[in-house]
């Protein structure tokens, strides 16, 4: 049993990819059913269970752990020039909790046919029916997963605080680390609230004390408040790491120092803090008081500003660069657009008046997929393509990677752009059946979803092929200067032989593309960077 953060990161990676395929398989059934109105493949009850499974798996088992737990685990200690995270045993425990929680969560949902949607709204979820009595099991699974998330956050927070190498001041940290740092704060502070909420559901259930169920004297709107108090910050647990990955990708592949470093770094933390006080924007039509809605709306617009500025920063980074359209860069550029759409469509939902019509329609469904898939999952994939050479010491087939990224982008837009119109036209979400006039949008959507499914298969097949027979990777194929590239092509178990020398993480002028070498070569001697100085050292070093 390993304690190595790199092995654990890869174990997370494959667990998460497996879960992504499971959640994806469920959504293929959903989209097939929605291809035309009426009952085609599954019954209404099955359909409701399918979207519950899809949402819960994708949120709790895929997107939340994706970048922090998989990429974070692998990359974070390397970026810090450290030998491991601060608490390697706790780290392994996080992984075990994730696996146990995941198995328990999915198994109990499948066994009991839970059909509440991933939001578990009371009193539907606490009412007297066998499926809902069984919600206790799913709740327990989610509870365990919460601990996994908290432990990971805690571990990273301490690691970043305590294990930075000499010379790496806060403002010399790569932005990916800033993003993970901000994410960890949210994980530690917000996750307990969902745990408490779920516990209260259990308490209400077992002791018949009225908390959320009006039949017992409870208040169902209280459940929504507690649920979104976690689940809105959770949006940023998904998004901030994606923004961190973005900053690395855009600067590396345009060979430019990131524009407005300080602004991006500090805005990550600012977003993390402010994200705690916007949850009520999910509840404008829930019966919450108008005054409260007004405050939430105002703060929501306020938090949109730093996100918008990050986009401007990335674009400014391209200016006067030397841009290479590698597959990772395609993901990066795609995210600028998709996140742009996701963010801008949020304006209609943040505005008190327009949200009333759009709330709980397909417009919302599409909006959050643009943010959670178009930005978070795309960044996860972009990050995998970027760091892959370090994972197994082999390269991906770049042609296949480019096809995968492009088809995914195309499929994504086909799937979700029509859903905006279905939404403004009035199609509510979580609808098993729909009026004739929504059929066109749904058909395009279904075609797009299958294209997305196909491109995911292609992308993962490419991963597997690379592990089996990929070209050996040089130590620093992208000429990047963050410390993880200053390791052997397959990093040693202890990562670094000597404490690395820390410089500016975005001084990309250290390396220059050399056509004859077919790789990046140093432009000047840099002490303490043994591996990156040898672009063609792959054959000898990969045995390390």
């Amino acid at each position: 049993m390993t304690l190595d953060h790199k092995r654990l990161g890869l174990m997370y990676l494959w667990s998460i990819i497996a879960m992504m395929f499971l959640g994806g398989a469920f959504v293929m059934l959903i989209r097939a059913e929605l291809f035309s109105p009426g009952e085609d493949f599954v019954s209404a009850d099955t359909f409701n269970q399918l979207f519950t499974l899809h949402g819960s798996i994708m949120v709790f088992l895929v997107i939340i752990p994706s970048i922090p737990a998989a990429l974070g685990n692998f990359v974070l200690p390397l970026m810090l020039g450290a030998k491991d995270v601060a608490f390697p045993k706790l780290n392994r425990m996080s992984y075990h909790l994730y696996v146990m929680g995941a198995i328990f969560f999915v198994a109990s949902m499948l066994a009991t046919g839970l059909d509440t949607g991933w939001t578990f709204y009371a009193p539907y979820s606490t009412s007297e029916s066998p499926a809902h009595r069984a919600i206790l099991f799913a709740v327990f699974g989610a509870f365990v997963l919460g601990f996994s998330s908290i432990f990971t956050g805690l571990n990273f927070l301490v690691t970043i605080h305590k294990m930075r190498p000499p010379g790496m001041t806060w403002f010399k940290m790569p932005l990916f680390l800033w993003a993970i740092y901000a994410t960890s704060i949210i994980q530690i502070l917000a996750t307990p609230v969902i745990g408490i909420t779920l516990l209260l559901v259990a308490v209400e259930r077992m002791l018949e004390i009225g908390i959320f169920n009006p039949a017992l004297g409870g208040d169902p709107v209280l459940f929504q408040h507690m649920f979104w108090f976690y689940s809105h910050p959770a949006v940023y647990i998904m998004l901030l790491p994606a923004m961190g990955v973005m900053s690395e990708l855009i600067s590396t592949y345009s060979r430019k120092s990131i524009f407005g470093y300080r602004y991006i770094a500090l805005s990550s933390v600012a977003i993390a803090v402010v994200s705690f006080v916007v949850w009520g924007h999910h509840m404008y039509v829930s019966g919450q008081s108008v005054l409260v809605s007004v405050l939430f709306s105002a703060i929501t617009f306020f938090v949109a500003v730093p996100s918008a500025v990050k986009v401007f920063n990335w674009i400014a980074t391209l200016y006067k660069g030397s841009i290479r359209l590698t597959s990772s860069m395609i993901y990066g550029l795609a995210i600028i657009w998709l996140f742009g759409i996701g963010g801008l469509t949020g304006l209609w939902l943040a505005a008190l008046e327009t949200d009333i019509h759009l709330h709980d329609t397909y417009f919302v469904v599409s909006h959050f997929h643009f943010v959670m898939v178009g930005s978070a999952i795309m960044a996860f994939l972009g990050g995998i393509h970027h760091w892959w050479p370090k994972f197994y010491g082999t390269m991906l087939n770049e042609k296949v990677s480019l096809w995968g990224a492009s088809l995914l982008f195309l499929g994504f837009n086909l799937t979700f752009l029509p859903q905006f119109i279905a939404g403004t036209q009035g199609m509510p979400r979580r609808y098993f059946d729909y009026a004739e006039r929504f059929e066109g949008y749904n058909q395009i959507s279904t075609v797009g979803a299958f294209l997305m499914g196909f491109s995911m298969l292609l992308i993962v097949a490419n991963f597997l092929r690379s592990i089996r027979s990929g070209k050996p990777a040089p130590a620093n194929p992208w000429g990047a200067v963050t410390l993880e590239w200053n390791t052997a092509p397959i990093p040693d178990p202890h990562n670094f032989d000597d404490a690395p020398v820390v410089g500016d993480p975005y001084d990309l002028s250290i390396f220059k593309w050399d056509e004859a070498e077919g790789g990046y070569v140093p432009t000047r001697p840099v002490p303490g960077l043994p591996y990156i100085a040898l672009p063609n050292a792959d054959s000898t070093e990969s045995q390390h």
Partner: protein
Amino acid sequence: MILPTLLPLILQQQDGEGGFFFPPVASDLAIASDSLFFTILYLSGLFFAIIVFTTLYFVWKYHHTKCPEPQPSPVHNNTIEIIWTVVPTILLAWIFMEGFEGCLARKTPPPDAYEIHAQGRKWSWNFTYPDGTESSVLHLPLGKAVRVNLASSDVLHSLFVPAFRVKMDVVPGRYEQLWFTPTMLGEFDVYCAEYCGTNHSAMITTAVVHSQEDFDAWLSEAGDFMTKLSPIEAGERVFASKGCAACHSVAGVAGIGPALNGRFGQERKLSDGSSVTFDANYVRESLLDPTAKIADGFQPIMPTFQGQLDDDKMRVLVEYLKSLQ
């Protein structure tokens, strides 16, 4: 110059009939809400166009085939950073204010608004008019402010009329309300927008906007159906308006609940193994205390109609069930 004049033509509503984005514009609120929608659309469209254009332009201009070396440029610039923080902040604050004003206008209904009570329950709507008339279809007078008071018998629902751009959750244990003025004659879809279980997507009815005369005529005809119609016909109306059909078929197919035709006078097997006769008393008990006796093979999820059905209505319901073969 061409774009700003062309775009509205493509995107704007056509004479209240709706358009590319929206269903018909059938209430005063719809007009206000859509105008803010399009304002945000133009603004964000402009921003998005800028984002797409600059990324494409930079990728083309600074592609490594043209620029093998990055050229020096500042890594940060206070003026630019302040401008692109302040400008969006002002625009966002303005959008917020617009949305805020629209929301205030929606908050308080005029004191003389016509009041309708809406009851949501799995999986149908029931509307009660000031004179006690009930209907499963939402009938409305044109041009008159209508206030709908909302209550739920079981779980969360949400009353959503896309053509009016109104939506409000229906919360058990509370009263919520919404109001609007219908501005267009016709029939419009009414949906449930908050997930509520098996037949959530079938919890649909129609809003019918009449002229004031037609509305009055409908109301007086519907109002005294108990006296005007035969008990069986009256029972059929109650059955429809109370949403029994959401769970019970009268054509012999078991759904969420048992089919109710051809049952009267028969033996009914219960979940505890005993059996009762399906008679007027059993029906009455099923309505007032549905969990007292559970039909074998079904879940105890029928809501109680205690307080919603008086003796007269239960009498005609029984007559109706008796008549079903």
